[in-house]
């Protein structure tokens, strides 16, 4: 057991770094990758570049188009992307529905959907939550009635992230109203352009249009778009959630976030000294680094388990809880660091040619909206309370 990288891994790191340096589009760099409201093409530009290289789905098996990397290589790749502040790859296709399709789908489904997920030709959204079914996901009521070779779907989903751009959605629907809660659910892939689908925006605390309500009114869905068996969708649903949670930990991004925080604290002045020299503030950053390091090595252990063929289990809940807490804490400290300049509010970001410029230093104007927005991370993907319930039950046997 050791923590050193092999010469091959070091060479791999160099290769990744060089690729990013040469290929990451300048147009995205100028947009401050993670703090601006982005358009569909912004989200997809980097996805497409990585897809061409065969690197867009690090976790996928080689036979379906993954790069065949070891967990260490995946870790290095994520780290390099974070260091270079590259755009996040949206998880809905790559990290969520993709693995469900290659694990539970038919050969036809794999052939039809997987290549388009990789290429970015299809944008996916996740239709799980409903107004009455949040933490209690299994109580969902959107129903799908079989009529010959179609399902007729009626109901309402909510909090559907970026559905305004989506070509496809994966939906949990109730196919057997009489069965026990978890047993009458099916996993359907629905073309978002189907007649009967309406997408309505929900504006969140930071002023973003990120989530939506999705109404389904007599939407016709071919039976061939169902993944796995009828009424056995819960199996896929849970498998997907475990993958979703691991993705949420975001260690590499948080490392980069702390680096940026330190940079800000060096620039900001408090009592005519750089804020970084303030012992209170230093201590808080140190504690944050401690938490992040503990998370990082825990994630490495979970990944090693996965490498050994044990898929992410309930312990991924730990990564979700701790990962989101660290992410939130970073945004808290950034907001604290910018002092008064956290207050001005600028929706979006000045475009080239605009003559409005933000108030205060350029890292400040998104500090508060980002802090507000990041409260979501302990709520979505199964709230942190629910994750603790899962650990209590599944891991500790309480």
């Amino acid at each position: 057991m050791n923590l050193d990288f092999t010469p091959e891994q070091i060479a791999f790191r160099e290769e990744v770094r060089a690729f990013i340096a040469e290929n990451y589009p300048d147009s995205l760099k100028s947009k401050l990758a993670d703090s601006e409201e982005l358009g569909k093409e912004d989200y997809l530009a980097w996805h497409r570049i990585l897809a061409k290289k065969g690197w867009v789905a690090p976790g996928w098996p080689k036979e379906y188009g993954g790069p065949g990397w070891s967990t260490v290589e995946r870790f290095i790749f994520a780290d390099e992307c974070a260091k270079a502040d590259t755009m996040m790859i949206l998880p809905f296709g790559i990290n969520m529905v993709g693995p469900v399709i290659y694990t539970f789908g038919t050969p036809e489904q794999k052939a039809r959907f997987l290549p388009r997920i990789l290429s970015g030709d299809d944008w996916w959204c996740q239709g799980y939550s409903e107004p009455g079914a949040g933490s209690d996901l299994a109580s969902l009521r959107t129903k799908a009635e079989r009529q010959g070779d179609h399902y007729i779907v009626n109901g309402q989903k909510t909090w559907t992230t970026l559905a305004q751009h989506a070509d496809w959605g994966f939906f949990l629907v109730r196919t057997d109203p009489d069965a026990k809660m978890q047993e009458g659910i099916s996993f359907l892939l629905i073309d978002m352009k189907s007649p009967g689908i309406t997408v309505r925006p929900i504006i969140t605390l930071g002023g973003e249009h990120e989530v939506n309500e999705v109404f389904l009114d007599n939407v016709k869905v071919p039976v061939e778009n169902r993944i796995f068996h009828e009424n056995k969708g819960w199996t896929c649903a849970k498998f997907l959630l475990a993958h979703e949670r691991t993705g949420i930990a975001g260690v590499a991004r948080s490392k980069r976030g702390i680096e940026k925080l330190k940079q800000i604290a060096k620039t900001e002045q408090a009592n005519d000294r750089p804020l970084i020299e303030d012992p209170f503030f230093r201590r808080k950053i140190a504690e944050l680094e401690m938490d992040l390091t503990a998370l990082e090595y825990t994630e490495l252990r979970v990944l090693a388990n996965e490498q050994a063929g044990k898929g992410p289990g309930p312990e991924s809940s730990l990564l979700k809880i701790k990962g989101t807490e660290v992410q939130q804490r970073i945004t808290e400290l950034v907001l604290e660091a910018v002092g008064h300049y956290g207050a001005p509010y600028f929706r979006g970001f000045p475009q080239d040619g605009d003559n409005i410029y933000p108030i205060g230093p350029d890292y400040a104007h998104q500090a508060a909206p980002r802090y507000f927005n990041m409260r979501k991370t302990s709520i979505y993907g199964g709230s942190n309370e629910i994750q603790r319930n899962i650990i209590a039950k599944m891991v500790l046997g309480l």
Partner: protein
Amino acid sequence: MNFEYTEEQTLLRNTLSRYFADAYDFEARRKMTGSDAGRDAGVWTAMAEELGILGAAFSEEQGGLGGGALENMLIMEEFGKALAVEPYLSTVVVAGGFLKRSKSAAAEGMIEQLISGEAIVAFAYAEPTGRYDLAAVKTEAKASGGGYTISGQKSVVAGAPWATHFVVTAKTAKGVAAFLVEAGAKGISMRSYPTVDGGTAAEVQFDNVSVGADALLTAEDGIAEIELVVDEATVAACAEAVGCLHQLHAQTMEYAKERKQFGRAIADFQVLQHRMVDMFMEVEQAVSMTLMATLKLGEDAKARAAAVSLAKAKVGHACKFVGENAIQIHGGMGMTDELAVGHYFKRATILEGLFGSIDHHLARYEKLSF
């Protein structure tokens, strides 16, 4: 010892609370803050004329109703409950605080204008690099021709676009002092913008603004007076936070009792019950600390400052804890712009940093008391 409010104080609170309930509900507020002006000027007029509350904290000789810090506390608490954006804090608490004590000729008549609602004052004290240290001021007031010329930049001046006057802190030959300057004076320019909590603020540039000798509100070395007034304002901000905190807690309890998951109200889950109990304890302690600091505003500088810093740190902590948990317990609904709870959270977040963060005040307390 007596923690009871007088009849007048209770009446004041009830009047204001009723007014806000009628004229300043969440939807009305949304309209006001979303308008170009960022507020409805009629509210200020109503406060002056209909309610007559702008004089509550001034003595009778000054044309007021004879109150002081306790009245400010009551009023600010109601502001917090209603999320009111009107510039009471800068106009009455800060500017009023200086004017009450000032012997300057410029002060004469000003209090009357404050009480009648004619004058609105913004407090221009923060600077790009000064952070929370009131003495770290780069704006200069140079003596010239019997008066002063003021030059410098002030940042995130709340309510600046509405102001008829500014109280500006600036460095004189002897130290830092506060000046009263008309907003229309030559050499003042500003760039205004909304703030994340629904308010309006501006970057204000003072470019060789000349004022007479009577614009000086404090001594030329006036840091002690500035600290006193800012301590009063800090406690008032605590009181506003207390109003927000009450709402955050009450709305969360209400939501938790109604929202059903797993076939029961989420308020039935013990982990949330305990969280709401912890929130309750934070709110109650914030109330206690605000009251304590309000009652100690009259003590000597050191005791007063120590009390204020302890209170602000504790209230700041409550803002964070109660605010974050209110959002968390509301689940996805807490993240929406539509529900009031998010707006209370945002205001609480800004109040947490106003006049100094938790760290700033703990450090100040340490310096004063060890």
